[in-house]
């Protein structure tokens, strides 16, 4: 009788709180689990490069890249496939 009471006591005072905690934790973490890993600034980045609307090759081979515009021996001309004077902007966070 005493054993049965203690079993019920454990179930009520430990089992139910643990169940509630598990449900709340699941509700909290479910969205992030569904979305997958998230980028966190300052932490390292392990994902492979992604090039959207790029050439057929996903990542350029540094050994076969064209010379930079303005580099010695490569006069900047139109129609060579190498961008001439460029513009744009830079930022960091």
């Amino acid at each position: 009788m005493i054993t049965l009471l203690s079993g019920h006591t454990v179930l009520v005072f430990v089992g139910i709180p643990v169940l509630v905690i598990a449900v709340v934790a699941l509700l909290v973490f479910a969205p992030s689990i569904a979305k997958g890993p998230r980028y966190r600034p300052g932490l390292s980045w392990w994902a492979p490069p992604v090039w959207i609307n790029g050439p057929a090759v996903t990542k350029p081979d540094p050994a076969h890249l064209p010379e930079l515009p303005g580099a010695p021996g490569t006069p900047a001309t139109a129609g060579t496939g190498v961008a001439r004077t460029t513009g744009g902007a830079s930022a960091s966070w």
Partner: protein
Amino acid sequence: MPAGDAFTPDQLYDIERAVRHAEEISGLRFSVYVGGADSETRPFALELLNELEDPDHTVLVYVDPAGRRLEIVTGALAKRQLSDAAAGLAALTMQTSFATGDLTGGLVTGVQQLGTHAHQPTLLHANEPHKQ
């Protein structure tokens, strides 16, 4: 960021849709690269631009999540439509989102903004001098 893909399929779709829309309204080509640089980010972004088919008409958005660097590179002819000041505004928008960890949102908003800035309204009757 644990090992795995940088974006989910839904996120990729959102970015690709923003790129397509920017291309449609501007007539320029847009390309987005997310990954580490083998060298300094600006020269690397220029190398990426030169890998594309028509670099002069292309706007390349390069994001280095590990180095926390963003480069927007406009080709020689693209920069006539998209000024450095406009690119700077878009960079600021993206920078804000990236700082909060929202890569997808920053790219979508930034590319949309670049496309809008590069948009050139069609000139009505510009090729019809006989009607003037």
